[in-house]
C-alpha cells in the first residue's frame, strides 16, 4: 500500500504504483480493447497528409470547436452594467453551464437566473415562466436592471421577448418603469461574440430608443465624451482597467459600455458582492450623447456599432489591439477624436515596450506560431507576432467569418513575415491538430483546450484566450496598452526560454547549451 497519512498521495501519484498498475492491466481484458498495434497504426495515420485531407473534407461534424454559444456572451455583457441580473429565458441547464464556465475561468462567482422552462412551456410557450421569473428575481436579488436573453429552446418555439416582458409588467412582475432590456440570442446563430453584440445592442437600444415604446427616445446632444466597448474578453478585468488608466492619463471623458472589470474581480473580505461596479444605467443612457464610440473588437460589435452610428456618433473599431502598432493606432485615435494631447507618460511606456522588444526579439524572430481563438483576438495576436518578426503560420478561428478571413489574409499579405501564413475560418481544433502534424510550428497560442494539442503534437502551448481554466489569475493582467503588450511579450518569451532549457538540460549530452545567460 502506497498511501500514508504522512505523505498523502492523490491522483497525480497514487495510480502510478504497482498495485494500481496491475489492477488496470487486469481490467483491460474486460474492455475488449483494440489491438495495440492497430491503435499505433491509426495514431500514426492521423498525423499524415492523407488524414489531414480527409479531416479538412469534413462537412458536418465539429470536433473540439473553439467557440461557445450566444447566451454566454449575453450574460458576460449584461453583468457589465450596474446592479444588473442576467435572466436567460429557456431551459435552466444552460444557465448552470454559463455560470460554471465563467466561474472556472475567472475564479469568481457568476450570478445569472433562468426562467426554467420545461416540457409544458415547450408546448404552451414560456410566458408564465417569464411572468413568475421576473417577479421572483426582482424580489430576491433586488437588481437595478434585469437583462433578458434566450436559450435555443425559447428561440425554436418562437417566444416573443418584447411581448412577454410587456405582459409581465402589466401583471406586476416588476414595476412598469423598471428596466428590462432584452435580446434574442439563438445558440444556432453565430457564437458567444454574437451574443455579446446582441445583448449590448439590446441594452443600448432600450435606453436610447425609448425603452420598448414606454418612454420618449433620447434626443442626442453631443458632448465630448468617448464610449469604449471592450467586447467578449477573458482578460476583461485587466484590459478595461488599463483602458481606464490610459483614458484618465489623457484626461478624456468616457464611458465604458459593459464594464464588467469589477464584478469579475471582487475582494475576499467577508462580503459576497453579487453586483459590483459596472456601467451605471444613467451613463448607459447618456452614452448616446458621446462624440464617438470605440469598439476594441470589431467582430463583437457588428450590430452594435452600426446602431451607434445611426444615432450620429463617429465609430471606430479595432481588432483586439495588442502590441506596438495596434496600441499606437488606438492611442492616436483617442487623441484625434478627443482632441487631447498624448501625455509624455504614454510615450515613455511606449518606449519601454520598444526597449523590451529590441532586447528580446532575437529569441522570437523567425519562429513559427499557430494561433486560435475568437476572431479579434486572433487578429490582434497575429499582428503583434508580425511586428516581432515571427510568423503566424496558422491562424484559426472557429467563429471567424468570411470577412474575417479576408481581413486576416490582407494582414498576413502586408508583412514579409506573413508570407506562407494562412487563416482558417470556421475550422476547429481537430483541424488544428492535423495542421500541427503536417505543417508543424514552434509554438501554439490558445486557450486551455490547447493542452490537448500540446500533448498530441508536442507543440508548446502559450495560454492566451478564453477560457483558461488550468492557470490562475492571468485575466487580471492587461493585454492591451503598451503595458499589456509587454505582458504578452513576456508570456511568449517565458515559454521560448522554458523550451530552450528543456531541450538542453540533459546532463552530459546537451547541456553545453544549457546557458545561464540568454
Amino acid at each position, binding site marked *: 500500500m502506497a*498511501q500514508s*497519512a*504522512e505523505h*498523502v498521495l*492523490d*491522483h497525480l501519484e*497514487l*495510480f502510478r504504483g504497482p498495485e*494500481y498498475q496491475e489492477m488496470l492491466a487486469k*481490467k483491460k481484458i*474486460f*474492455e*475488449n480493447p483494440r489491438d495495440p498495434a492497430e*491503435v499505433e497504426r491509426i495514431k500514426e495515420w492521423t498525423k499524415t497528409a492523407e488524414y489531414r485531407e*480527409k*479531416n479538412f473534407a*469534413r462537412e*458536418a*461534424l*465539429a*470536433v473540439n470547436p473553439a467557440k*461557445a*454559444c450566444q447566451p454566454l456572451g449575453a450574460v458576460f455583457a449584461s453583468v457589465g452594467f450596474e446592479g444588473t441580473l442576467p435572466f436567460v429565458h*429557456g*431551459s*435552466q*441547464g*444552460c444557465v448552470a*453551464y454559463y455560470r*460554471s464556465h465563467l*466561474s*472556472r475561468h475567472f475564479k469568481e*462567482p457568476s450570478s445569472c437566473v433562468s*426562467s*426554467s*422552462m420545461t416540457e409544458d*412551456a*415547450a408546448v404552451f410557450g414560456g410566458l408564465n*415562466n417569464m411572468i*413568475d*421569473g*421576473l417577479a*421572483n*428575481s426582482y*424580489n*430576491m436579488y433586488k437588481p437595478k436592471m434585469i437583462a433578458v436573453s434566450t436559450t*435555443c*429552446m425559447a428561440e*425554436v418555439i418562437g417566444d416573443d421577448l418584447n411581448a412577454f416582458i410587456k405582459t409581465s409588467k402589466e401583471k406586476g412582475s416588476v414595476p412598469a418603469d423598471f428596466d428590462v432590456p432584452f435580446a434574442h440570442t439563438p*445558440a*444556432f446563430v453565430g*457564437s458567444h461574440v454574437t451574443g455579446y453584440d446582441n445583448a449590448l445592442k439590446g441594452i443600448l437600444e432600450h435606453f436610447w430608443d425609448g425603452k420598448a415604446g414606454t418612454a420618449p427616445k433620447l434626443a442626442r446632444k453631443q458632448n465630448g465624451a468617448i464610449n469604449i466597448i471592450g467586447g467578449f474578453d477573458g482578460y476583461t478585468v485587466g484590459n478595461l482597467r488599463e483602458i481606464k488608466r490610459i483614458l484618465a492619463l489623457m484626461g478624456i471623458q468616457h464611458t465604458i459600455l459593459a464594464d464588467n472589470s469589477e464584478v469579475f474581480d471582487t*475582494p*475576499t*473580505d*467577508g*462580503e*459576497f*458582492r453579487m453586483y459590483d461596479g459596472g456601467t451605471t444605467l444613467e451613463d448607459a443612457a447618456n452614452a448616446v450623447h458621446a462624440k464617438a464610440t470605440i469598439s476594441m473588437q470589431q467582430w463583437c460589435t457588428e450590430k452594435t456599432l452600426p446602431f451607434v452610428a445611426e444615432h450620429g456618433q463617429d465609430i471606430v473599431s479595432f481588432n483586439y489591439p495588442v502590441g506596438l502598432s495596434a496600441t499606437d493606432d488606438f492611442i492616436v485615435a483617442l487623441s484625434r477624436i478627443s482632441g487631447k494631447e498624448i501625455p509624455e507618460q504614454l510615450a515613455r511606456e511606449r518606449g519601454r515596450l520598444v526597449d523590451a522588444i529590441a532586447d528580446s526579439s532575437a529569441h522570437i524572430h523567425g519562429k513559427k506560431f499557430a494561433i486560435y481563438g475568437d476572431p479579434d483576438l486572433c487578429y490582434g495576436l497575429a499582428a503583434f507576432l508580425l511586428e516581432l518578426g515571427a510568423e503566424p503560420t496558422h491562424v484559426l478561428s472557429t467563429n471567424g467569418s468570411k470577412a474575417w478571413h479576408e481581413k486576416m489574409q490582407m494582414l498576413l499579405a502586408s508583412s514579409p513575415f506573413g508570407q506562407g501564413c494562412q487563416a482558417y475560418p470556421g475550422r476547429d481544433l481537430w483541424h488544428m491538430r492535423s495542421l500541427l502534424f503536417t505543417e508543424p510550428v514552434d509554438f501554439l497560442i490558445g486557450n486551455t483546450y490547447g493542452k490537448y494539442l500540446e500533448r*498530441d503534437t508536442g507543440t508548446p502551448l502559450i495560454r492566451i484566450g478564453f477560457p483558461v481554466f488550468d492557470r490562475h489569475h492571468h485575466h487580471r493582467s492587461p493585454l492591451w496598452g503598451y503595458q499589456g503588450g509587454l505582458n504578452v511579450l513576456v508570456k511568449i518569451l517565458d515559454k521560448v526560454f522554458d523550451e530552450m532549457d528543456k531541450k538542453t538540460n540533459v546532463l552530459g549530452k546537451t547541456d553545453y547549451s544549457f546557458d545561464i545567460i540568454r
Partner: protein
Amino acid sequence: MSLATTQSIAEIRARNKELIEEVLKVYPEKTAKRRAKHLNVHQAGKSDCGVKSNIKSIPGVMTIRGCAYAGSKGVVWGPIKDMVHISHGPVGCGQYSWGSRRNYYVGTTGIDSFVTLQFTSDFQEKDIVFGGDKKLVKILDEIQELFPLNNGITIQSECPIGLIGDDIEAVSRAKSKEYGGKTIVPVRCEGFRGVSQSLGHHIANDAVRDWIFDQLESDGKPKFEQTPYDVAIIGDYNIGGDAWSSRILLEEMGLRVIAQWSGDGSLAELEATPKAKLNILHCYRSMNYISRHMEEKFGIPWCEYNFFGPSKIAESLRKIAGYFDDKIKEGAERVIEKYQPLVNAVIAKYRPRLESKTVMLYVGGLRPRHVIGAYEDLGMEVIGTGYEFGHNDDYQRTAQHYVKDSTLIYDDVNGYEFERFVEKLQPDLVGSGIKEKYVFQKMGVPFRQMHSWDYSGPYHGYDGFAIFARDMDMAINSPVWKKTKAPWKEASRAKLLAAE
C-alpha cells in the same frame, strides 16, 4: 468553534425553523408557498426528511440545477470511453461540459478513447429550419472515417432535437445496419425534459436497456471465463479515480470486477454486466433504474454501498461480502484489517485539527448523504444538507441512515436561500459546486467542491479517505481565512468566530 455545539437540539431546531421562516419572507406569496415545501428541519425517527423533491424549479430564483442532457451526456454516457458521444444540436452544451467532470480513464485519446473530445453537430439556423437528420447521417459517416477505432456512437439530444421533430432513432437504426450492426444509441435527453439532471439519468439508463441490452444475443457468451465472484461497479464515475480506489478493495477481498459503470467504462463492460453475480451500486440516484432492470430481467441482485470514510467502507465491504461465501467474507475482514493502520494514522493526524467543525453540504446524486460518515469519522458534524435533484427515496435514505436530529434540509436550494443559511449558521466548511465556491469564499467561509473534488481525489476507498481528510484540513485550516479583514477594519462577530 462551531455555534451548533453550544446549543441544545431544541434550540437548534427552533433556530433553524426561524431561519426558514425568515428566508421565505423574500418571496412573492405564491413562490413562498412552493418553496416552503422544500425546506425543513429534520426530526429524528421520521422516515424521510419532510421535504418535497423532484419538482420543477421555480423560474427566476437561481436554481443550481442542470438539465437532462447534463444527466445523460455529462453523467451517465460521457465517461464510456471507447464510444463517441455526439452533443447533437447547437455548440454550447458540448462546449460547457467538455472535460469538466474529471471522469478519469486510460486510453489513447482521439484514437481508441474519446471522453475528453467535444463532438458536436454544431447546429446552424438551416438545421433548425430543415431538420438535422441529414446532417446526423453525414456526421456518423465522418466519425466512422476519421475515428475508425470507435466501438460505438451515442447521440445526445440537445433541446432543439425534440422540438423540430428529428427522427434520430430512424437514423441510428439505418446507420447501424449499414455499418454491420454497430452500436449506435440515440438518447432523447433534451434539456427541457423533466425538472433536473435526474430525468437525464433515467433516460440514459433506458437507452442502455433498449439499445444495448435488448440488442444482445440471448445466449451470448462473455469473452471471458465466468467466476462465482464476478461483480459490476454501478454508479461510479471515476471522478479523480474514485472507481479505481474502490475496485482495488473489491479485488483485494476476492471479488472480480467485470464492469465499471461508467467511469473508465467501455461498451464491452456494459454488454458483459448481465453476467455479473451482483451489481454493487454507489450512486443510487443515477443508476438505480438499470440495476432494477437487471434484477428483473436477468435476476441479478444489487446492493447499495458507500465507500466514503472508514466506517461506511467497512460496513459496505461486509454488506457486499454478505452476498458471497466465507472466502469473500474473510476477504472483507482481511481488507478492513489491512487498512486499519492507515485509517488510524489518518484520523490521528487530522481529527484533532477538524474535531467538532461543522459542515453544510449541497450536492447532487448520492453525496448529500454518502459523505456524512466520512466527515463524522474525522469528528466533524454536518448541520445542513440538501439534494440538487434527489427524489423522496433519497431523502428517506438520508433520514433513516445519515442525518442527525435538527439538521437543516434544503431541496433544490437556490443562491439566495443557501447564502442566507450559511450566513446565519456560520459553518466551518461548505461543500458544494463551482457556482457556489467563490460566493462562500468571498464571505470568508472555507469551501470544497464536492462534485469535482476541487480537482483533487479520489475520495472513494481507504486511499481516498486520506486525500479527503487532507483536503478538508487544508480548506478549513488555511491561514488565509484569518486574513480576510484588513487589520485596520473592525472584525465582525462572524469573522471572530471563524478565526477562533
